[in-house]
C-alpha cells in the first residue's frame, strides 16, 4: 500500500531535507550528485559541483582500516548498482582541510512508482567523537588491567565493584571471587575503624593520598601497602563510591629496613672501633661491645666470655653480660671453660636451634631463682680466637623467639669477634709491656742503690785524704776525683728520676720556703766550686715565699746554673734574676754563651737532647727534661729565649701555692 503525498507535504519534506542537521544528499542513477543539504556541505568541508561529481561530495573516502575506497565501490554506488542493502556501513571521509570524519552511511535507493531506480538518497551520521571516546575507554581499560598496582572500585557501603589484574596479584583473590564482596575482606580486624575514617573522608569528597597501612591477602598474610583513594561520582555529581589504588610496598619497606639495619650495623661497628681505640680498660671495652652487639643481633641476652691476664701475668676467665632492660644480675654466669672448648671443638659459628637439647649451652643462660628473664630457646655461639688461632673467648646470644634468631647476621658477628680478639691481644701485649716496664724500673732503682754504695765509701776515703797533708799535685787530682764522683752521683740520680717519671711515680713533697734564700744558698755553693764564672743574683728583696718541693726546685736551679756555666765556656758571668707577683714567683738564668738556634730551642726540653756541635759537653741530656717535668708538675711554666752567639736566658715560673 502506497501513501500518496499532497503538494504541501512535498514542500514540507523538501524543507525538512534542506534544514536537517543530518548530512544528506541525492545522486542520480548515474551517480552524479544532484542535491545536497547544508549539513552535508558542513560535514565534507566543501560544496560539490552539482551534476559533475559522483557518489560523494567528500574530497576522498576510505574504509575504516585506512585503505582508499574507489567511488564505484562505495556503499552509495553499491546500493544503486547492486541494489544491496548496505545501510550503517562505516567509512572515513577526507575533508578538504585534511581532517577526517568517521561516518555511518545510510544510502537509500529512490524508485519511481513503477519501480525503476532513479537514484539514491544518502544520509551520513558523524560518529567521529563517539569512536574517539571508545578508543580512549579501551586504552584506559588496558592501563587499569596492565597496572602493577591494585585498582579497585567500591560502593560507599564497601561492596567491591571492580578488580584489576594487579589487585589479583597483590591480594590473591580472582575477580569473580571478590566482586560483590565487602572491602573488609582485605582489612585486618584491628584496622576496621580505619576504613570507616577513609569512607568518611570520601563522603566529604576528599581524596586520601599515599596512606600507608596493612592489608590481608587471601592466604592471610599481612602486607604493607600505600593507598590512594578518590571519590567516584555519577553524572549528577553525587558521590556513589570510591576508586582505590593500592601499591604493595613490602619491597620498599624491606629495603628501608635493610638500609636501616645496615646503617645500624655500621654505627655499631664504628662505636665498637671507637671504644677499642679510646678505652684501655679491657673489661669496659668488652662490656660496651657485648651491649651493642646484643642489641644489634636482636638477642634477648648476650654473654661474652674472655680470657684476660693481670699485671702479674696470671690469666683468668671473665664474663660480661648484656640483658634486656639491663637485668644483668639475673644470670648466674658459671665460669666453666670446659663448656666453651667443647662447643667450639670445630672452628666456626655454632647455632643451637633448641638449647633444651644442649644442656651445657642452656647452663650458660642459667638464671637466678625468681628472675624474670625470658626463657632462652635458641642460641648463636661465636668463638673468639687470637691471632694464633687459640680460643680466647666466646660470645653467646640467646633468643626466646626463633624468627629473630634466624635473621642474626653471622658475618657481622664474626667481624665483631675479630675485633674483640684484637682487643684481648692488645690487652695482653699491654700487660706484658707494663710488666716489663715495671721490671725495668725496679732494676733501675736497685742498680742506682747498688751504685751509690761504693760511691759512699769512695767519697768518704777521698774526703779523709783531702784533710791530710798531701802535696799540690795530689790535692789537684783529689779535687778532680771528688768532682767526677759528684757527676756520677748526679747521673745516677737523673736515671732514677726518669724511671720514676715513666712509672708515674715521681712524687713531690711540698713545703713552704723562701725561693730567694734557696737561690742564694745554691749560688753560694757555685762560688766555692766554680773557678771560671761569677754568678750575680738580682732582685732578692721582696716576697718569694712559695709552697713547693724544695729539693726538686733546688734541682731545677742547679741544673739551669750548671748549664749556663757549661755552655758559656768563654764567658765569666751568669746572671740570676728573681721576680714575683701576687700569684707567681719566677727565676731567670742568663748566660753570655753560644746561644741556640730556634730549632734547638724547640728541642732542648726533650729527653736525651744534646746540643749539636758540642761533643765535649757531657751528660745524658736529661737535665732540662727533668726540670720541665718538675716545673710543669708544680703547675708552672719553663722556657728559653736565645739567639745564636748571644747567649741564652732560661726561665721558669711557678704558682705560689696554698
Amino acid at each position: 500500500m502506497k501513501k500518496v503525498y499532497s503538494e504541501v507535504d512535498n514542500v514540507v519534506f523538501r524543507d525538512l531535507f534542506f534544514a536537517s542537521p543530518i548530512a544528506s544528499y541525492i545522486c542520480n542513477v548515474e551517480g552524479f550528485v544532484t542535491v545536497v543539504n547544508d549539513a552535508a556541505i558542513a560535514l565534507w568541508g566543501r560544496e560539490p559541483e552539482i551534476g559533475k561529481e559522483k557518489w560523494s561530495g567528500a574530497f576522498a573516502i576510505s574504509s575504516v582500516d585506512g585503505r582508499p575506497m574507489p567511488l564505484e565501490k562505495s556503499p552509495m554506488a553499491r546500493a544503486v548498482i547492486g541494489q544491496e542493502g548496505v545501510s550503517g556501513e562505516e567509512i572515513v571521509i577526507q575533508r578538504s582541510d585534511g581532517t577526517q570524519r568517521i561516518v555511518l552511511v545510510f544510502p537509500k535507493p529512490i524508485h519511481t512508482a513503477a519501480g525503476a531506480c532513479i537514484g539514491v538518497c544518502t544520509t551520513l551520521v558523524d560518529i567521529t567523537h563517539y569512536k574517539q571516546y571508545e578508543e580512549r575507554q579501551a586504552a584506559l581499560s588496558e592501563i587499569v588491567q596492565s597496572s602493577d598496582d591494585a585498582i579497585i572500585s567500591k560502593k560507599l557501603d564497601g561492596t567491591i565493584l571492580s578488580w584489576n589484574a594487579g589487585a589479583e596479584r597483590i591480594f590473591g583473590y580472582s575477580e569473580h571471587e571478590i566482586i560483590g564482596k565487602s572491602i573488609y575482606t582485605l582489612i585486618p580486624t584491628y584496622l576496621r575503624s580505619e576504613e570507616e575514617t577513609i569512607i568518611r573522608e570520601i563522603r566529604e569528597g576528599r581524596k586520601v593520598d599515599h596512606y600507608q597501612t596493612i592489608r590481608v591477602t587471601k592466604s592471610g598474610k599481612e602486607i604493607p601497602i600505600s593507598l590512594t583513594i578518590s571519590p567516584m561520582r555519577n553524572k549528577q555529581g553525587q558521590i556513589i563510591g570510591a576508586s582505590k589504588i593500592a601499591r604493595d610496598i613490602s619491597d620498599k619497606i624491606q629495603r628501608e629496613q635493610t638500609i636501616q639495619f645496615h646503617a645500624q650495623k655500621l654505627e655499631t661497628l664504628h662505636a665498637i672501633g671507637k671504644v677499642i681505640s679510646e678505652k684501655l680498660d679491657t673489661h669496659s671495652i668488652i662490656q660496651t661491645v657485648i651491649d651493642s652487639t646484643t642489641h644489634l643481633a636482636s638477642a634477648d641476652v648476650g654473654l661474652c666470655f674472655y680470657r684476660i691476664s693481670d699485671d702479674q701475668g696470671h690469666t683468668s676467665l671473665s664474663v660480661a653480660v648484656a640483658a634486656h632492660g639491663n637485668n644483668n644480675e639475673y644470670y648466674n654466669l658459671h665460669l666453666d671453660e670446659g663448656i666453651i672448648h667443647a662447643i667450639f671443638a670445630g672452628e666456626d659459628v655454632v647455632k643451637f636451634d633448641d638449647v633444651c637439647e644442649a644442656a651445657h649451652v642452656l647452663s650458660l643462660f642459667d638464671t637466678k631463682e625468681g628472675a624474670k628473664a625470658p626463657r632462652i630457646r635458641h642460641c648463636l655461639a661465636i668463638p673468639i680466637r687470637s691471632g694464633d688461632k687459640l680460643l680466647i673467648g666466646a660470645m653467646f646470644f640467646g633468643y626466646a623467639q626463633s624468627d629473630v634468631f634466624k635473621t642474626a647476621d653471622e658475618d657481622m658477628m664474626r667481624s665483631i669477634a675479630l675485633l674483640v680478639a684484637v682487643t684481648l691481644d692488645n690487652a695482653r701485649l699491654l700487660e706484658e709491656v707494663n710488666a716489663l716496664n715495671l721490671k725495668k724500673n725496679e732494676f733501675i732503682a736497685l742498680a742506682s742503690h747498688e751504685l751509690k754504695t761504693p760511691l759512699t765509701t769512695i767519697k768518704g776515703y777521698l774526703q779523709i785524704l783531702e784533710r791530710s797533708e798531701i802535696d799540690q799535685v795530689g790535692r789537684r787530682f783529689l779535687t778532680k776525683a771528688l768532682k767526677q764522683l759528684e757527676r756520677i752521683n748526679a747521673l745516677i740520680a737523673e736515671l732514677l728520676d726518669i724511671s720514676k717519671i715513666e712509672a708515674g711515680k715521681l712524687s713531690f713533697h711540698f713545703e713552704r720556703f723562701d725561693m730567694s734564700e734557696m737561690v742564694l744558698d745554691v749560688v753560694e755553693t757555685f762560688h766555692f766550686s766554680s773557678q771560671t764564672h761569677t754568678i750575680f743574683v738580682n732582685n732578692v728583696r721582696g716576697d718569694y715565699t712559695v709552697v713547693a718541693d724544695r729539693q726538686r726546685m733546688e734541682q731545677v736551679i742547679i741544673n739551669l746554673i750548671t748549664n749556663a756555666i757549661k755552655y758559656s765556656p768563654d764567658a765569666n758571668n751568669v746572671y740570676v734574676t728573681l721576680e714575683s707577683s701576687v700569684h707567681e714567683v719566677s727565676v731567670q738564668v742568663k748566660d753570655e754563651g753560644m746561644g741556640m738556634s730556634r730549632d734547638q730551642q724547640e728541642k732542648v726540653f726533650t729527653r736525651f737532647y744534646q746540643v749539636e756541635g758540642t761533643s765535649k759537653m757531657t751528660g745524658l741530656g736529661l737535665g732540662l727534661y727533668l726540670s720541665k717535668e718538675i716545673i710543669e708538675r708544680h703547675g708552672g711554666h719553663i722556657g728559653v729565649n736565645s739567639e745564636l752567639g748571644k747567649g741564652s736566658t732560661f726561665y721558669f715560673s711557678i704558682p705560689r701555692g696554698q
Partner: protein
Amino acid sequence: MKKAVHVLEDDIDIGELIVFLLTEQGYDVAVFSNIASFKQHAGQQSPDLLIIDVMLPDGNGLDICEAWKTDEATSQIPILLMSAYDDYRHDHRAEKANGFISKPFDIKTFLGEVKLRLG
C-alpha cells in the same frame, strides 16, 4: 765517759768508714751488719745515738726506727736514718727519726749531724 754510737749497716766498707770517722771524734762505736745481731745486742747497752741504714739483708731499718721511737724505753734515743734511696726520707716510718742522711754523704755534713744529735 765516751758517748756510745750504734750503727746498723750491712756494707762492711761503709761500716768501717763510719767507725773510723766516729772513733777519731772520740765516740764509742759498735757496728751491726744485720737486724738479728743488732737485736741480740740491744738488751745489753743503750746507745746515745743510733745510726740505721734502711735497706738491710734481713729487714727494713725504717721498722727498727719506728719500733724504737714507739717504745717508751728507747723513744728518747736519737736516731739518724741513712740510705742511698732518697725517697725513704718521706716514708711515714721515718717521721720520728731525728735526721736523714743521703748516701753518698759528705763527711763534714755527716759528722755535723752526729754532733748535733749528741749535744
